[in-house]
């Protein structure tokens, strides 16, 4: 039993290491175009993960998360372009801007729940969109802010291509961000967010300050979202109102739900899938949006917990097909006993 458990945990470690290795070595075997697609996947993984914190863990369905993405982008755009501030500082300020926006809008937005929360977040983002659109002098309006210089990792200049250079920068930033997010999710705070999602009242009854927890989650999600937006501005060398549009917020939602809301790997898979569909499928057919729509619908219907749960689901279906005694669900911890007793058996025993 113990050996199986250790094996399971080592499996995961092994895959993680393999993945890390592949990501580090990517510029060596990927030509420029796929490498930049991979960079974009990294950035949107961060964006999707930040939304996941709100939507998947805390259960707050936000359709306005692009507000933070755009805020980060415009912060970077304004700082880098007009003030020539170096990337690390600009990105930091972008995060602060996102956090500030969340702190200001939080008390209003958190007065609502469910669908009302959805449309209030959407409304605020639309208002921000409108402001950005109209305030041409500062934001460039519809034209946005072009010509943002791409930051480079100094010790890699000359050794790798520019694309690879920025790729590594993005990898470092996104990687660190995701690591901190993993910490947050595994902390008691993360567990309490799930409690909020499941039943806020019960959690309050246990003595948790639920409003403060939601506010904190909203603010943290805003900070990470802004970080992703700032990176994206550097990536494209450009920031425009499209980065605050609700279409982007909707796409973020698709990424999270498609991959698996409330899981760690889900949003990353979702981001990768959506972007790969856009870039790769569009080479074959113009109908990639339709395909995305169909895939999304199928996922919502058949795999509502997301693609990341596909192995579990397959296992479930096979068990049902073979008409075995209903298996207890896979335990949430990493430990998986050799044979899971059915719930009925367990209760009979006790």
């Amino acid at each position, binding site marked *: 039993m113990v050996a199986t458990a250790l094996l399971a945990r080592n499996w995961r470690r092994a895959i993680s290491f393999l993945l890390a290795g592949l990501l580090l070595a990517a510029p060596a075997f990927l030509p420029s175009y796929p490498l930049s697609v991979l960079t974009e996947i990294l950035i949107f993984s961060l964006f999707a993960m930040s939304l996941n914190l709100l939507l998947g863990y805390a259960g707050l369905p936000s359709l306005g998360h692009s507000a933070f993405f755009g805020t980060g982008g415009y912060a970077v755009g304004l700082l880098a372009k007009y003030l020539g501030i170096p990337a690390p500082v600009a990105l930091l300020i972008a995060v602060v801007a996102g956090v500030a926006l969340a702190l200001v809008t939080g008390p209003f937005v958190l007065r609502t729940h469910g669908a009302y929360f959805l449309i209030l977040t959407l409304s605020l983002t639309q208002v921000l969109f409108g402001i950005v659109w109209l305030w041409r002098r500062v934001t460039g309006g519809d034209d946005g802010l072009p010509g943002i210089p791409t930051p480079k990792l100094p010790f890699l200049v000359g050794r790798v291509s520019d694309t690879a250079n920025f790729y590594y920068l993005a990898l470092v930033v996104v990687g660190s961000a995701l690591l901190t997010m993993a*910490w947050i999710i595994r902390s008691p705070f993360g567990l*309490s967010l799930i409690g909020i999602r499941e039943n806020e*009242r*019960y959690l309050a*009854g*246990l003595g948790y300050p639920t409003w403060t927890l939601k506010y904190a989650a909203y603010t943290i999600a805003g900070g990470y979202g802004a970080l992703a937006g700032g990176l994206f501005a550097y990536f494209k060398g450009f920031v425009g109102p499209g980065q605050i549009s609700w279409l982007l917020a909707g796409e973020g939602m698709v990424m999270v739900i498609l991959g698996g809301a409330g899981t760690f790997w889900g949003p990353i898979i979702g981001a990768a899938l959506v972007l790969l569909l856009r870039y790769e499928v569009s080479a074959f057919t113009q109908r990639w949006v339709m395909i995305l729509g169909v895939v999304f619908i199928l996922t919502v219907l058949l795999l509502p917990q997301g693609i990341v749960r596909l192995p579990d689901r397959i296992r479930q279906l096979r068990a049902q097909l073979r008409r075995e005694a209903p298996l207890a*669900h896979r335990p949430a*911890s990493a*430990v998986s006993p050799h044979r899971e007793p059915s719930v009925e058996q367990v209760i009979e025993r006790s």
Partner: protein
Amino acid sequence: MTAVPALQLEHVSKIIGGLTILEDMSLTVQPGERRAIIGPNGAGKTTLLNVIAGFLPATRGRVIVFGRDVTRLPAHRRVDVGLLKTNQQPAVFQELTTRQNVLIALLRGRHRLLGLTGQVNSDRAVQREAERVLEEWGLLDVSDIEVRHLPHGYQRRVELAARFALRPRLLLLDEPAAGLAVDEIPAFIERLAQLPRDMTVVLVEHSMRVVFSFADRITVLHHGAVLADGTPDEIQRNEDVQAAYLAGAMRGRNAGTA
């Protein structure tokens, strides 16, 4: 010299949308007492518990727990004075495992910065404590199964295990026997009797077997006001109670609301 009462309600009223649900209620529960609150459907029993627990603000009056005026405190702050409440439907997190349900209770307030400074899996002390609680409540075998797969009786156990882990001084039980089969009641009464005597328990229940075997004192509610208050014997002999219960039971059946 009298000890500080565990619970005092002073002229508590609750009015929702023009409807008076609780009317000028006053009652006192002594520490260690077992108080049952009964009454026909619609008498306001669940509302009363929700007001005491802080899920509903009182329109008028004061709620005092162990000498502290908690009237203005939100529900999550009342846990600080040792007040915990269960639900008619067991208050458990369905998608979490039994262990996680217990952990979430134990982790409350344990790590700074809203819990951001710790990690659930590496908090050895909490994990050990959780294991102990699970064992004490006979939940080890189902510890890693999501609660939604468990039958009702087990969910109730998880709910109680989680709350006991927080060492309540005043425990509010909202119809805990609801959903139990008739032959499960004796075992349930047994378990209730085993509750520590230093814990004050206020119980809302419909099952008279549970009430009369468990309670030290009984408060009868009718139309949101206290109709009678006394020992089980006194209440049984009380004619007003008999009249109200019978009449109220008829009315309750027609209205169909609790």
